[in-house]
């Protein structure tokens, strides 16, 4: 049995070395944006149309 600290680890996922993604300030700002449709999911803004009204 493949064990670590007495536990079976044969079903554990294969180890992957951690990676770091370096982002510039512009790339971070770009990643943290939202559209009207995304904000509108909270259902407090207007809707575009109604399919069954």
């Amino acid at each position, binding site marked *: 049995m493949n064990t670590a600290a007495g536990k079976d680890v044969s079903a554990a996922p294969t180890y992957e070395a951690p990676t770091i993604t370096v982002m510039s*300030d*512009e790339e*971070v*700002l*770009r*990643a*943290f*944006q*939202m*559209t*009207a*449709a*995304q*904000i*509108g*999911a*909270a*259902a*407090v*803004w*207007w*809707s*575009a*149309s*109604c*399919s*069954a*009204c």
Partner: protein
Amino acid sequence: MSDTRAQMKRVLGVTLCDDPARETRFTVVQLPQDLGEYAPGSPEWRRESLHRHLNTEVQSLEIAAQSLVDFPAAPWGLRLQHARQCWDESRHARLVERELVAKGGFAGEFPIINYDWGVACAVKTLAGRLAVQNRTVEAGEMDLLLQLRDSWESSAEPETAALMDGILADEIQHVRFANQWIKSEAKKNPRLVMEIAAAISFVRAVTASFTPASGEQNRAGVRFADLDREGFALNVEDRRLADFGEEDLAALQAGPAR
């Protein structure tokens, strides 16, 4: 940030800024299920849409004014922009109320929710507040206003359409001054970028908490699943004027990073 500490409230598991004062004629609710949203194009939709818009403009005024209070050490030029925004939003509110009354409605006719205020003023950094309110919410309103303008036009209501167009022109400047400040300051102080990332992550979490289940109905008896909230196209032309770059726009069109 100044010593002024806003009262906070808990709604749906998230902490938001407590409601601003409202006249007693308004019914203030906390949940989207308690708002009445009607079939687009109906007389009730016309009035409720303008009523919702009225409270949105008032909140935008209040958020800009609160930013003047909360961030007294902000650069003078930025404070001047916030002060000008207060004037713009107060004018918008008066004009929207005039349209509401012209269509037979009145302030206080429908329930209101102070969601924009609750979210934006819960963000306690200047960069985060500008990113949430101006770069995100008001930029999203630019997408909305373009569609609302077209909706009013197709309803043969050119005066209301013209009002939406005029408000949209002002919103471009509100988004632009924030974009310019954020991009310029982020170059000098990378910490601001992390404040913005945290603020937008907060908005995403709040949005997820507020999103109703598809089978639920609003106060007007309309199922949320039947209301299209995905159909707002990106207002690319006006976002360009508001200093969104081509790569910013491409990222918005591709969807959010997770």
